[in-house]
């Protein structure tokens, strides 16, 4: 085979490979949606995080605006400290309400943010004060049975 033909094919192959990596990053992955290099950190204390995991999305109005980067247990307050890395394009008021929600009945858990009306905005390293714990199925059932028993 001619040297130049071979070079051409190899060039095309390498370009196809790099294009495939680009497609994976931009079209399949979330590199265009969420760029960790431009982000700010928020924390929040939750009484119960249920099944929330690191890397779970942080959504507001259903749009992904950040990700959970760390979950720690605090021995001072005896609750969970959740660290979120937020996309710096989206900023939220100080009185934003964070709750742990479930997508669908059995889907993955995520943090839902409901914006408040405060004029001050949350900045890097701030703590979300208003949080709502995860709904835990066992507690729900337990409360339901307790209420039933009390009625009778």
């Amino acid at each position, binding site marked *: *085979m001619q040297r130049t033909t*071979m070079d051409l094919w*190899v060039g095309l*192959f390498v370009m*196809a*490979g790099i294009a495939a*990596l680009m497609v994976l990053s931009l*079209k*399949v*992955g979330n590199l265009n949606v969420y760029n960790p290099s431009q982000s700010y950190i928020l924390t929040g204390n939750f009484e119960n995080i249920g099944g929330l995991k690191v890397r779970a999305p942080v959504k507001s109005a259903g749009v992904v605006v950040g990700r959970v980067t760390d979950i720690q247990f605090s021995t001072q307050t005896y609750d969970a400290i959740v660290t979120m890395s937020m996309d710096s394009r989206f900023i939220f008021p100080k009185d934003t309400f964070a709750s742990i929600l479930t997508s669908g009945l059995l889907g993955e858990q995520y943090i839902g943010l409901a914006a408040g009306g405060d004029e001050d905005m949350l900045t890097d390293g701030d703590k979300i004060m208003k949080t709502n714990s995860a709904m835990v199925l066992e507690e729900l059932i337990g409360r339901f049975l307790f209420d039933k028993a009390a009625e009778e």
Partner: protein
Amino acid sequence: MFRHALSAIQNIGHRVIEGMWRLGHASRFFILVLLKSGTSLRRFGLVIRELYFTGVLSLIIIVVSGLFVGMVLGLQGYETLQKYGSESAVGTLVALSLVRELGPVVAALLFASRAGSAITAEIGLMKATEQLAAMGMMAVDPVSRVVAPRFWSGVISMPLLAAIFSVMGVYGGYLVTVVFIGVDEGTYWSQMQSAVDFRFDILNGFIKSCFFGVAVTAIAVFEGYDAPPTAEGVSGATTRTVVSSSLVILGLDFILTAFMFRGVS
């Protein structure tokens, strides 16, 4: 009875020693190839020539298999997910399976049987027909002139092939679920994008395929260079390349997965 048991134990010991010796031999050869890679970098034309044989000629099998694996994943995933009413997650299922596991692993298995066996057979035959000895006599080191360019071509083409495989799979899944079954196109891509993370999924998949590329080509060049210079020797070495690189890919995949995705569901 006692004698039988003794000989069985001896047999095991013998095999273990033999295996360890071979492993050590292979590791030494691997380091030798790395040390003698200078020529490949200085004369990159040698690597480009081999990239044609390892990369370009593997494209067809990679593209076709990727497409079909994606189509099957889409079909099966849709069938199962729709029972729970979450067929919108089919894009996530296809993409995550491909990017994390199937892309790197299946592409590496195909690569081992397509390019790995060819590398072994070629080097083995060059040895059997005294071409390597002739090269040595011409004061050209066969390891740097023949082995190292093939090694690097494999290391370069493996991640690219795995990426092409995954992309073809994602579009295969798209074809079946969106075009044929009628899942909403926006849902397919947006569910996928919200679930597939660049650093955790794509980068880790890419790192995996790099590891597989090194492992498969290292095994292939070693088996070829180490093959007995006979017809049976070369065919045996080719078989060993496919078998041991497949096992190494699966074993390595388990170890890498355990490290990368531990604690991250």
